[in-house]
């Protein structure tokens, strides 16, 4: 397997990504969007599209740059650092991974649309407050050559802004996955005001008619297909969350060096030093898990579950520690809305729940390690 250090190519990608995001999507941009009641930044997305990010997992034949998951994680991490608002994860990672696996002409076209920026996706999966892909009630009934969908989805990240929705449903032969445009009769999308100021929606399907070729796999392979998409998403989300943790940590150590109390910089207090050092160790450990998940997804995606759950669990935990310590070590100013740390704390909480929380992924790890 490839080494657990970034390649030269990945380093260059990182530099380019950081430059673009610091210019076009700093945390102040998130604040601006929030204050305007916006949850989308179309100009930014088009800039990402132009930089090839939308097509990071799209084959060159479909207009993508096809750089693989580890490279995508480099981007995700940088986005986590600045709390970037974009449909990158839902669209360029999850939807692209699923569509690529399908491999048919319709999916090829969808991939082209992703790479060109004319199509964005949301994954409609959760039906209750906790991630649980094995209990899906939304019903897909066969009618003629097509299907009729009935049911509800919640916590659909990017759900009110996306042009397309990938919907997990219970068919007669098990789980199936549909790919449909969001402007469908019978589909109501209600956006949720989320604490991290991003887009999420509740979706209600009332006799939504879909055609047969909007079903992504025909013969009960929905669960398998979903797994690839989910694991790609979970790993990228881990990378994003890792970037978030790193940035919150840097903001905190920066503050420790600058802030004075009792006549000295608070960085000189050993109790804070040791806590910061411990947090840094946690971040190092998590970084390894994230790098590893990227390598495995690129080299052996059939067996990536352990690596992915490990990365997601570690990233979730580390980020929560980073933002908790971040607020506490900043003291009062960290609690003010005028300071950015709160945005990190809120995003970390949302990231913790999305696509499975610590407990979910810990259980996956335990199962795969024989207990």
């Amino acid at each position, binding site marked *: 397997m490839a080494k657990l250090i970034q390649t030269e190519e990945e380093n260059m990608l990182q530099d380019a990504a950081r430059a673009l995001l610091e210019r076009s999507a700093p945390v102040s941009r998130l604040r601006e969007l929030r204050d305007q009641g916006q949850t989308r930044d179309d100009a930014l997305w088009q800039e990402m599209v132009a930089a090839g990010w939308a097509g990071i997992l799209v084959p060159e034949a479909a207009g993508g740059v096809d750089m693989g998951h580890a490279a995508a994680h480099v981007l995700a991490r940088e986005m986590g650092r600045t709390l970037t608002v974009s449909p990158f994860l839902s669209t360029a990672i999850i939807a692209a991974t699923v569509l690529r696996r399908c491999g048919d002409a319709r999916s090829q076209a969808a991939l082209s649309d992703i790479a060109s920026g004319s199509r964005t996706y949301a994954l409609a999966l959760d039906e209750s407050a906790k991630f649980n892909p094995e209990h899906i009630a939304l019903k897909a009934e066969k009618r003629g050559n097509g299907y009729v969908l009935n049911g509800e989805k919640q916590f659909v990240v990017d759900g009110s802004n996306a042009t397309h929705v990938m919907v997990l449903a219970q068919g007669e032969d098990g789980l199936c996955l549909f790919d449909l445009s969001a402007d469908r009769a019978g589909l109501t999308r209600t956006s949720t005001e989320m604490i991290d100021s991003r887009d999420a929606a509740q979706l209600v399907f009332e006799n939504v008619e879909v055609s047969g070729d909007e079903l992504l796999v025909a013969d009960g392979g929905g669960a398998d297909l979903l797994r690839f998409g989910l694991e790609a998403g979970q790993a990228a989300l881990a990378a994003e969350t890792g970037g978030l943790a790193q940035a919150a940590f840097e903001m905190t150590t920066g503050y420790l060096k600058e802030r004075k109390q009792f006549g000295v910089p608070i960085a000189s207090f050993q109790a804070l030093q040791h806590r910061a050092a411990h947090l840094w160790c946690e971040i190092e450990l998590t970084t390894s898990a994230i790098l590893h998940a990227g390598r495995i997804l690129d080299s052996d995606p059939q067996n990536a579950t352990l690596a992915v759950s490990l990365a997601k669990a570690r990233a979730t935990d580390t980020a929560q520690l980073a933002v908790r310590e971040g607020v*506490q070590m900043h003291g*009062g100013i960290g609690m003010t809305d005028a300071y950015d740390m709160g945005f990190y*704390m809120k995003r970390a*909480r949302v990231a913790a729940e999305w696509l499975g929380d610590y407990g979910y992924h810990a259980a996956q790890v335990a199962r795969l390690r024989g207990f």
Partner: protein
Amino acid sequence: MTTDSGTEFADTPDFRKKIRAWLEENCPEDMRDGAGGEGEICWGGRNWTFASEGQKLWLERCAAVGLTVPTWPKAYGGAGLSREQDKILKEEMTKLGARSPLDSFGIWMLGPALLKFGTEEQKQHFLPPIARGEIRWCQGYSEPGAGSDLAGVQSKADDKGDHWLVNGQKIWTSYADKADWIFALLRTDRDAPKHKGISFILMDMRSKGVTTRPIRLISGASPFCETFFDDVKVPKEQVVGEVNRGWDVAKYLLTHEREMISAGGQTMGAGRPLGAVLADSETGASDPVLRADAMRTEIDALAMELTLERYKDQAEGGQGVGDASAMLKYAGTELNKRRLELVMAAGGSDTLAWEDGRAPSWLRTKANSIEGGTSEVMLSIISRRILGLGA
């Protein structure tokens, strides 16, 4: 002094019976709902608008017999109750579901400070209006540059002969935008060692040169403000305790405040039992991570409750709690943070919408271990003053 109120509690032998009867007779129906949320509090003050006729009546009736400040001496508007009687009063009020007739920083903070450090004149002048809910106070301690280093106060009161001239800025002044008066720590001697040049000064918020600006928190709108003083003239007699000895007053109140915050933190935390929180959660029963966290938190919360009880028993037994209040503050607030983390995790994505209401509570707890002395300051107090560790 008390005959004119028509009731006499403090010296009554059969106290519980009497107080129960009085409450039954006097507490308006709409003040018996047991509510104690931020929105139901009666803060009083010049600009106070009563939420209902009942709220107004309840304040007036209690004030008339000293029950807004039950343990204060009758001479200053209290009922002169003993701790034991006060406990009984609280118990009977809880039984009836009676709301607190009046809450204020005047009652919690300034009152105790004046009772201990004030002149007879100050007590006569300032305490009764607090007891009657006529004047609402706020607290001006923290400054933007100071943080945990409370004694690092930079806002100054210069002695101009017949008045103080006050300039500077305070932060985290709760309800400064709604208060009538402020009690503040101000530097009155810039050459003295930092703890020795501070005075505890009272100011009318209507004074020329006082402005306030609310602070928005990560959890949303907050009662906190920034308060600015720009050439504010303050009468010389509005110093509590000796000039340049304001730190003594502040220290006394800090200990007092810690005990209250930790008790408050506990009450906040109590909210719904964790069992119910978990039972509602889809994964609460099956996720060992969540379940083990909940068990630990529940165990620690019970131990915390018992410790509050034990410290109260100690205080009543004449053994003071003193610096150990730092423990209540530290453990109580850290526990409360864990509790709300658990509420969020158990509630899953439902909690991520603002309108759900759990997220603001969760975010707000993060300030518990900062305000009123950070957890780090509490640990330092414990290690130095109780354990005798130090350089």
